[in-house]
């Protein structure tokens, strides 16, 4: 009831006018539109005008092609089996999946670089920090260490030879091989797809 009252106060929408011109409204929508068109001169006029537009479009003549279609020998020669692009695409997908799996496994098994490459420095070896002191006259500033003659001078610990900088990804030859297969197969799939035509999307 509320819907009917709300509808009765409004005009037909653009979409309803179009469907009404086609006679494509059904059920309650059709009943409401028909009763509204009897009362509303504006919507009735719009519907008539839309019907005229549609009739005019349908009345347009159909042109004849300048030349009939002829299958060019080149097109016949270039016809490719539909299996080829799919095979190349499958190869690309398989090599990508293998590459991801291998890389993930490798990253999981590789020792954590942060722990091995930079060992914790013992507190005793660091020694006291240098302290800035101001001379008695306040004119000269010198930096000196407190008197700790027994402590050895701080030395930098060399990184182990096998350690890598954190965040670097080392690619093994077989990972590179998989990446190459992926690149070649995906390129081939794209090429074959383009060659067989991209009319369907």
């Amino acid at each position, binding site marked *: 009831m509320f819907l009917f009252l709300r509808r009765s106060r409004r005009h037909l929408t*653009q*979409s309803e*006018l*179009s*469907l009404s*011109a086609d006679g*494509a409204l059904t059920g309650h929508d059709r009943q409401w539109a028909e009763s509204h068109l009897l009362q509303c001169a504006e919507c009735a006029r*719009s519907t008539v*005008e*839309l019907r*005229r*537009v*549609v*009739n*005019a*479009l*349908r*009345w*347009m*003549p*159909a*042109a*004849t*092609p*300048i*030349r*009939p*279609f*002829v*299958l*060019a020998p080149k*097109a*016949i020669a*270039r*016809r*490719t*089996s*539909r299996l080829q692009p799919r095979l190349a695409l499958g190869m690309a997908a398989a090599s990508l999946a293998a590459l991801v799996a291998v890389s993930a496994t490798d990253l999981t098994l590789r020792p954590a670089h942060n722990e091995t490459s930079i060992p914790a420095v013992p507190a005793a070896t660091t020694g006291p920090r240098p302290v800035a002191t101001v001379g008695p006259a306040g004119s000269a500033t010198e930096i000196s260490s407190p008197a700790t003659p027994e402590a050895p001078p701080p030395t930098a610990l060399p990184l182990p030879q096998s350690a890598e900088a954190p965040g670097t990804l080392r690619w093994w030859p077989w990972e590179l091989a998989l990446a190459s297969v992926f690149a070649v197969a995906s390129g081939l799939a794209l090429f074959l797809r383009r060659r*067989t*035509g*991209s*009319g*369907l*999307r």
Partner: protein
Amino acid sequence: MSLKAYSPPMSQPQPDDDALIQLCQRGDHAAFEQLAHHYERQVYNLAYRMTGSASVAQDILQDTFTSAFRQIGRYRAGNFRAWILRIAANASKDFLRSADHRKQVSLEHLTETTLVQWPDHGESPEDYSLRLELANVLQQAILRLPLEQRLVLVLIDVQGLDYQAAAESVKAPVGTVKSRLSRARAAMRVHLASHTELLPEQFRLNK
């Protein structure tokens, strides 16, 4: 003067299309050419209405069927007309989005009505010239529509496809097709109302 309602004699899906398609899928070139002749007029008209150029429409016709020939193996039973028109629609849209199209100076320049071959349906010369005049006015209005609205309008109101077949051709839901069509018709109505003096009497709006 009375002008009888006219619907273009477009070829409807043929009963032997399925047999021809099966032959094409086995690589029969002659069968494909026969199939192409059933639909070439529809493809050509779609491309012509979309681009406004007879020579471009001819190129699109050739590209569409060449592409269809290469992809016929992927066609599964269904509406072949919608399938082939989808390829033609994509080819037309590709052209309109391409750099070649942007080189065109104006819409008026695109409409090569002099190159178009219009069939003679045995009507009087007066009716015939009137039809061509109306077609020219409508074509100018169609070319001013946004691409997706233009496509739906041409498929449904010019080619005579129903909503479902048009939805298959544009690969969109039926609701979207209805919405685009209503906007396209509203735009056509506004355009034709402002050029009413160019229309034959029975098609004049605001009378």
